[in-house]
């Protein structure tokens, strides 16, 4: 099978790659580009561990083809911090211990970033529904919700 040539923007950098027509964006990120922050928990769009933002839209990268990234702007967890300065969500996840094993954390951070971009002042219920596409098996979500609430407060003040 011939490869598809793709030119895209990932975390602000122009990236070019060849991928197979049936290859998911998640596989391209992880296996071709070495961006293993996005995780594969299910491969069927049910767990959200592979969440990325494409042109301001939150998606499961396991449900997007690598070829579909052509000309798009992609944000992954690797692009959230600025140099050595963590994003407020990253900082609040650490302070609130909003992670135990941490495998779902990149997906939650990306989903929460997308949520706060669209709704900077969410209620608890809006946070809970906004993050309902991301599975966490360790925390019971309590500390994740509190971390997002706290980050929203910090980001509003910034």
């Amino acid at each position, binding site marked *: 099978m011939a490869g598809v040539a793709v030119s895209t923007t990932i975390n602000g950098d122009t990236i070019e790659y060849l991928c197979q027509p049936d290859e998911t964006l998640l596989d391209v990120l992880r296996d071709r580009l070495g961006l293993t*922050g996005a995780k594969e*928990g299910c491969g069927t769009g049910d*767990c959200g561990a592979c969440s990325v933002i494409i042109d301001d839209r939150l998606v499961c990268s396991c449900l997007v083809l690598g070829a579909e990234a052509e000309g798009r702007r992609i944000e992954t967890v690797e692009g*959230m911090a600025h140099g050595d300065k963590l994003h407020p969500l990253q900082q609040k996840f650490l302070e609130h211990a909003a992670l135990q094993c941490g*495998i779902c954390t*990149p997906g939650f951070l990306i989903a929460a970033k997308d949520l706060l971009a669209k709704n900077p002042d969410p209620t608890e219920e809006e946070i809970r529904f906004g993050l309902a596409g*991301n599975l966490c098996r360790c925390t*019971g*979500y309590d500390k994740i919700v509190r971390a997002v609430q706290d980050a929203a407060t910090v980001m509003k003040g910034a």
Partner: protein
Amino acid sequence: MNFDPRFSGRKFASVGTRPIRPDGVDKVTGRARYGADFNMAGQLVGRVLRSPHAHAKIRKIDTSKAEALAGVKAVITAADLPDLTDGDAAMYDILDNCMARTKALYDGHAVAAVAAIDARTARQALKLIEVDYEVLPHVTDVDEAMQHHAPLINDTVFTEGLEEKPVKPSNVTKRSQFGHGDVHQGFGHSDFIVERSFKTEQTHQGYIEPHACVANVSTDGTADLWVCTQGHFVYRQHCAQLLGMEASKLRVTSSEIGGGFGGKTHVWAEPVALALSRKAGRPVKLVMTRDEVFRASGPTSATSIDVKIGARKDGTITAAEATLRYSAGPYAGSWAEIGAMTAFACYRLDNVKTVGFEVLVNRPKTAAYRAPSAPMAAFAVESTVDELAKELGMDPVEFRIRNAAQEGTRSSYGPVYGPIGIGPTLEAVKVHPHMKAPLKKNQGRGMACGFWFNFGGQTCVDLNIGMDGSVSLAVGTVDVGGSRASLSLVAAEELGIDYSQLKAIVADTSSLGYNDMTDGSRGTFSSSMATISAARNAIKILRERAAQMWDISVDDVVWEQGHAVAKGEKHGNLGKLSLKEIAAKSGTTGGPIAGHSELVADGAGVSFATHICDVEVDPETGSTRVIRYTVVQDAGKAVHPTYVEGQYQGGAAQGIGWALNEEYIYGKDGRLQNAGFLDYRIPVCSDLPMIDTQILEIPNPNHPYGVRGVGETSIVPPLAAIANAVSNAAGVRMTHIPMSPPRILAAIEAEREG
């Protein structure tokens, strides 16, 4: 120096604080490397072919077409994993589970595997493997499997533990019994008796990270394995034994682990990956799909439990009895035995008897799931206790307080308790504001208690002091949820230094002595004990070096708050030396300074919790919402309270999923029908309320800081607490978990029709 593990009642400076975990930044930036995040040059992709049948004889496997496919570098079957288990029945079962030998025993059982240059080629190769099956009758239900006419899963199994040796094989592998006193007599003295039967369905641990490993076997007989596991030393033992290697030649590195909850405590794909690598002569990466995780990795038992409890009018329980049947998958286990031990562990009973039956079924091999076997037994017992309280007209908390086990009580499973937390958790619940909060229409409140043994085990720690005075701590218990933070706090406490001066890592199997796996809530309990011991050994050397620097006797040097201090008037002008100052001179005072510890961490203190839950049941749809939840649990000493709260909340959330929603659904064909997160639905963020926690600290006398394990007990009470709440809200006793909307509706309708 002999290590004294007894509780000393010291005041803490670091322990009990809540610093950011040392592995935190890597985990929020995507840099942390989990099982599937590691790659090697020249690596192949491994894939496993699995049986579509619940029970089938494997007549023949033809791999020739797959082997001929361009890009395929190795194909293996059971013939490539010969039986080297030498009569070790448990290891033979693990081997057979890794790769079916003569029979496929469940839908998803591995029968062959390939390694190819890419995933597409590997998938194609699987389709070219021809397996000739003779399909056999199957059984997946625990009660049906006990019937005498049920299909036999293993005709060499004869029930153990019966008075008379059976003459016919059976799906029941073992009968076990616990208790004391005379239950018959006890029931004779009771004014009220409640007898109920319960069922719970099979659930999966549901870790978000599928099993993943990279195996690299060299032609010189050495090998490396990178793997997500709860116990890399145990995986090394298993793999070395199954592949005929010396353990020292196999170096196993534990990756970050994306959840385990008991499900990553024995090998599945790792021996297969090693066998593929050995055959192909190249590294092989093998990652399970989610479908494979559900179909072929460790679910918990499905159960069927009968409970009978009798009490006098004054609320004293006179006798308690339970019969517990637990499915084990197709291989023997001790799941019902554990259920039978834990069932009545919360209570002070003169007459108690529990009987457990281990039952083979054509389902995946049962694996541990967080306090394995205890939640189902607690569901049955605590539901019956609630019913009995109602019969007696007593408050359910008061009834439990009256009968709660205490220090000195002989437990239902044998040992006599030391200081324990069941009474204090109940007293805390009694006065908790949650118990007095008003309820609305269709809402109900329930509470329940839970017990878990906790475990210690073999543990080894290295504590190395650098010449700059910083400290590295190498532990061998895999960090499943923050133990590097808690162990750093413990080392900082003992050495008298700041948390920031330490860095803790999980060492690989070639860099540290053997460690049992992280199970039994032992991670922080046992490794903190070894860390304290290692730190005390290092302090001894630090004092010796300080004495040398001062040219005084070591007996005149004590260790206080991170400094060597010279004691006595004659040394009044010497002042003190910091750890950093002593470390800087180590090159000229005798070389590197380190403390090591190898021990068996005995005396894991038993753990108790009591949970309160409010639910709202929609009588039209049978749908249930948890609207408030409170966990009260004894931690002994909470080393890092935030992560202790996290364990309480996480266990409660898993229990809520189990109670209301999660179950393995098998078709008549014996195939799993919901092998994915869409159809096997674990709780999502919008399903749950905040989960309140209250940490009690009743020191464990067998740990220097009083620590008890905290990880597992939190999943024990929820099934029962929620069942009691739902039963109170719906006005009908729920006896079948999960209480999914159809089951609740059916129960309400049956009650209406009388």
